[in-house]
């Protein structure tokens, strides 16, 4: 039984839409607003308006795994050092939420809040990213922030702080409808296949593929071309993925050589398997079964017609009734 790859991928995207988990999203947003208000009350004029970033904002979220990111831009003179800013935020969040969270943890550049399961068994996760404007009172104009690097990792291994422009990162993906579809598909794959790669990396590499190659055709053809691009380029010497928030950051530096080879090999194997049997596409790009309609035409009302069937039916030869 062959699978129509284009239709399947459309269904994958459809079943991973955030609207299916609107209740949960609402819970996230309510919690996020609570935290934002608490931060604004506590830090007052030391911060600019906190804003949302991450996959929600970029509209690349998938409903099987997501968290909400909140960027808190501090004024230059609010803290002497970035570390003090980071610690102050951690201390405040800890004081405020230790009783209602399962974990408050220091992450690479953010502080993760994992709230206790509510009565529906839902766990809300927020990532709070503190940043300090680069130059006093310039933030409103240039959006430039300095982040404190808590855990030395990958590109962050050599420094204790990192300059970035989160707004520019968000703008980078704006109005890129086709890219977003592919990014979401690759995130769905990654989430299902070991979660080895950072979403930001998949995002940048997809956008770059669209810039460098002629990525066209139907949804599958586009995905296939992006995968080919990743396969061909990612392990090449000198292949760079520049962070739109800071041209000095190359996301490829976060991968070891063997990880680059691995990613290239993954793409190759997947393309090979899918092309040898279209049903394999479902192994790599699964639908979210929780939100799957069996088939468009077998919605719960109306007379159903099989897709791809003949215009009229001929009853099978011999049937016995009793």
């Amino acid at each position: 039984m062959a699978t129509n790859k284009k239709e399947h991928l459309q269904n994958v995207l459809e079943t991973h839409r955030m609207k299916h988990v609107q209740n949960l999203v609402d819970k996230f947003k309510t919690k996020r607003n609570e935290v934002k208000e608490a931060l604004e009350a506590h830090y007052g004029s030391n911060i600019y308006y906190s804003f949302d970033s991450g996959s929600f904002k970029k509209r690349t979220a998938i409903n099987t795994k997501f968290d909400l990111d909140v960027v808190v831009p501090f004024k230059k003179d609010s803290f002497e050092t970035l570390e003090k800013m980071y610690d102050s935020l951690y201390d405040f969040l800890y004081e405020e939420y230790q009783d209602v969270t399962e974990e408050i943890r220091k992450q690479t550049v953010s502080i993760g809040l994992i709230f206790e399961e509510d009565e529906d068994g839902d766990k809300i996760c927020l990532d709070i990213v503190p940043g300090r404007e680069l130059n006093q009172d310039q933030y409103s104009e240039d959006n430039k922030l300095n982040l404190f690097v808590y855990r030395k990792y990958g590109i962050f291994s050599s420094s204790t702080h990192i300059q970035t422009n989160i707004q520019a990162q968000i703008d980078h993906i704006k109005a890129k409808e086709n890219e977003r579809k592919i990014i979401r598909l690759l995130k769905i794959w990654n989430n299902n296949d070991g979660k080895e790669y950072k979403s930001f990396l998949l995002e940048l590499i997809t956008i770059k593929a669209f810039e460098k190659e002629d990525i066209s055709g139907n949804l599958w053809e586009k995905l296939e071309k992006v995968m080919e691009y990743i396969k061909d380029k990612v392990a090449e010497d000198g292949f760079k993925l520049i962070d739109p928030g800071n041209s000095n950051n190359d996301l490829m530096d976060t991968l070891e050589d063997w990880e680059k080879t691995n990613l290239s090999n993954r793409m190759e194997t997947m393309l090979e398997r899918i092309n040898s049997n279209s049903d394999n596409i479902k192994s790599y790009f699964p639908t979210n079964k929780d939100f799957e309609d069996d088939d468009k035409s077998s919605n719960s009302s109306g007379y159903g017609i099989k897709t791809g069937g003949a215009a009229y039916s001929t009853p099978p030869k011999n049937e016995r009734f009793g």
Partner: protein
Amino acid sequence: MGFLDDVTKLISNIPFVEKAYDFVEEKLQIRGKVIISFKELEKPLEFEIVVFKCYPLKYNDADSIKFKNSNLIEYRHVMEDGAICIHTTHHTNLKSKLNYDFHSLRNWIVKYYINKEQDDHYEHIIVDDKLINNRYWSYQFTDLKHPFEKGEFGEVSITSIQLGTFKSNLISNHIIQNFIRENGEQLECEWSQLYKNMDITNSGAYVYIETPPATYGKFIFTKWLDLQDHLPERFLNFLLEFQKRHIKHRGKLLPLFIGYKIDDVNLHWQVAMLEIGDFPIIGYQLPNKKWITIPKNELDINWGITRNTSYKYFFGRGSFSQSFAEKKILIIGVGALGSMVAKTLTRCGCRFIDIADNDIKEPENVCRSEYIFNTGLMDKTEELKFILSTISPFIETNIVDKDYFQGIIKLFHKEKGGKSSFEANLNKYDLVVDCTTDNDLMYILDSLDLKCDLINLSITNFAKELVCAFHPNTYNFVMNQFMNVLENDTSDLYNPTGCWSPTFKASYNDISLLVQMAIKHIHNLYETGSRKTNFIIENDSSNLKIVEY
């Protein structure tokens, strides 16, 4: 020409044979003498030579040519009768075989007689298996955490295992459980808990003498006289006391373990069998009224059989890497697949395998699993635990609550805190193997955030394919393989009696072939540190092919 002439002539023609003489033909062999001489050899050496008539073939797996010189017994690889142990090889041609064997003799002379080389490996003492009171006696020991000190002695606790037949006679087999020092300290042998918990059935005594109880380090002492310098007097007193305490068992045999070092870290035990009431010692009073105990030097020592069954020796001929063998493993579902996985891992040296299954072994399960007939109906887990313990004395197997995976997890996975409690329980392991083919369970396990590795194994009908998936990419992959990709023909399933669900058709040979290959591949992934990529093994008319996804 006859065999005698052939052999004599061929031997005479070997360049370093100075002389071959006194060759005579006997009923089953020919016998003669040779003088070996070559440049590196200061003085020529004479050997008595025996060639059996089956030569160049072997006789009863023993070499049918012997070179003897009883003056050489102190050298390495020389038997008590002066026979040199040489490396031989298979030849059916008389001339080639003679040439080869004489060159082996020459190599021995150069290596051990002239250069007096030592081997890297220890040459164990040769002890002939001996019938004592009409049967053989064997004792297996294994590693202990503590070292022994020269001259220390004490009691030994022993558990008897199977009685059996050995060289057509009865044999009593035992394992040593612990050594009890004079101060009461117990040094435990590191068997698995199941063996440690077995009842103590016999006692013995031990003395650690540090050097091998052997002449030239290889011929075991024959008389108590040989041992007299090694046995501390306090030990002999202890032995006398020991005999008094056990005198009501007069006539029974008591093993005395004599321990010694074989290299910097390893030690070995020989066992002398003593008869209670007739110990080879005698106590008498000196003129100064003091009692002393001395051995009856003229008596023969009756050596029993010992074996070093330490983990290293037990799995010495082949096992998985240490890092894999030490993994804490849980196998969920021990039907055909699961029982094969468990047994294979056990034979490959794994030490910690817990198992979970709520099913019963029925007679009809036996033909294609590792279960056995003569236990009748039994919980699969209980039987498998038993079977694994019969294979390895080092395997620790716990049975996980029988309802945990089939029941509890399913009832509570939606409850608050349910998942994190399952995660905590599974994260106690390094590796969890799900062989249940239970889609519901796979679905739940797939949703967990696990630190441990989880592997899902299943096969299609007729064992055409084996599907192996690694967490966190199990559920979707396996379902898609079974429902869409593979042609799993479920129209022809085997329906057992009763109304439980039908099962796939495949023989032990079909399944174990795939299981062995899968385990080999998985072990290899761990060894090479490769990415754990899901794979299918396709069994296509006897060609096995691994297809990685």
